[in-house]
């Protein structure tokens, strides 16, 4: 039952992945190059998100502290 519900979602996800491969011209590369590119992209995006999380959290705390909403 759960796999039936997931089937259209899975289809949609694989369509999105196909579009991503086409847009980035990864479609023409070999599968191991996909792995290399995806891992590099995931690490860059992960680092950006982590940096964003760390700095935004600190800045938000500083702003709230300035406006004396939180002590």
């Amino acid at each position, binding site marked *: 039952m759960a796999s039936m519900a997931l089937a259209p979602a899975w289809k949609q996800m694989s369509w999105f992945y196909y579009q991503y491969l086409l847009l980035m*011209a990864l479609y*023409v590369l070999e599968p191991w190059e996909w792995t290399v590119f995806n891992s590099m992209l995931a690490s860059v995006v992960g680092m950006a998100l982590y940096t964003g999380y760390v700095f935004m959290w600190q800045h938000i705390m500083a702003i709230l502290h300035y406006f004396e909403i939180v002590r």
Partner: protein
Amino acid sequence: MANPGGGAVCNGNLHNHKKQSNGSQSGNCRKNGIIKEDQQNGKPHCYKQIVESFEEPPLHVMVFTYLGYGIGTLFGHFRDFLRKCGIEKCNTAIEREKQRDFVPLYQDFENFYTRNLYMRIRDNWNRPICSAPGPQFDIMERVSDDYNWTFRFTGRTIKDVINMGSYNFLGLAARYDESMRTIKEVLEVYGTGVSSTRQEMGTLDKHKELEDLVAKFLNVEAAMVFGMGFATNSMNIPALVGKGCLILSDELNHASLVLGARLSGATIRVFKHNNSQNLEMLLKDAVIYGQPRTHRAWKKILILVEGIYSMEGSILHLPQIVALKNKYKAYLYIDEAHSIGAVGPTGRGVVDFFGMDPREIDVLMGTFTKSFGAAGGYIAGRKDLVDYLRANSHSAAYATSMSPPISEKIITSIKFLMGDDGSTQGLQRIQQLAKNTRYFRKKLSEMGFIVYGNEKSPVVPVLLYMPGKVAAFARSLLQKKIGVVVVGFPATPLAEARARFCISAAHTRKNLNTVLEALDEIGDLLQLKYSRHRKSMRREPYEETSFELDD
């Protein structure tokens, strides 16, 4: 097609043409409001308004295209590094050990591109076929085990693939049937080879018959035929112009024209594609300033253009160019490789399309490969021009002349088109081609694809832009048993990869509908419908007779 009538607008006067960026228009020639019905008897149909479109894609498409090429380049450098280190086996040509210190041969961009980008999707080109290139053909199936470095044939053939890539505009390139009986007879009498050049022992009576027929077909004084279309351009332009002459050539001219121009030794200046304002500016400069250092007048000014440009699908703006040439006293050379037999109400090329007099063009060149189902080229014009070429052309002096069965095929095709065998089938084919072209282009732009070119040109480029989509498009269509030609860099600009469809008169409505359905599906799957001028599927309110704006 509505007749605008009025010969005055068609004889080389500059008439206003509107370049519209809308996808399609009804092509109605009623723009002046007055239609001179009484002048239509005996006057050829004039094409008064040029409707062509070269739509710009949305910005994100260009961004992703360049991004895709950037990623491809990065991975190309990475793979080159691996090959140099020896981690990966190098399958391309490299210099020998002894030559490692010489100037590198394979480091330029073209080789880099071939090794790293073209090779990966190489299975979409050079596909061997094993039948006549009619509306349907058979392709040999081949697979690659090592990502397109080597191929092997599985032994099977893919049968009845719809052919949207062959230059078979009138459907005359077909397998043997009864109408080709004369070719068999000629083969029995003359054999296949000529074994000589035109100037030595290679001029046959078949060539004379063919040349007279070509001159009659084009309505000019004389013509000369050559064995190869590319060689016609590249070997005859050097005979016509030389040092001290000026060649003004369109920026998108074919390689044969460029090669002929460079071989001639004349000065070459390039004008923007189909842009008569730019051409006029260059002509003015040429006439005023003359040759570069001495400022003497140019010996000859030759304008090199094509009838239909095969990568863009655009048709030459002939009336403006002829008006310019008459004003500035230059000579005009038109390469009608794609347009002869394919445009014009009687199929006589771009001159017929605009209803102009062929005597206004100095050199008419064309090939027999595209619409006549044969091979070879011709040059036609005034008798003294053709007589000069018979004596001075490099092709006449050194190249083998046209094979007799091919000459007979062209004779049969031209007679068929002119209706000499008593039937109107030739004219019907030309009209069928025009109908197919109109239908196909209209449907494509309704679906939302970006289609370049003139609305009446049978060469239909559909823009794909991204390198990944180029490969996916060609492969998906082959799986649906449709064969198309996709073109990328270096034949087109880097960011404008396209698929080029060549409509044929032999395509039935069913074939075209199959192709259109497949294109619709693949366009949705690959997200190729970039056009912003897509017509809505809803019927427009003013098409109905009563003005009730419902909904």
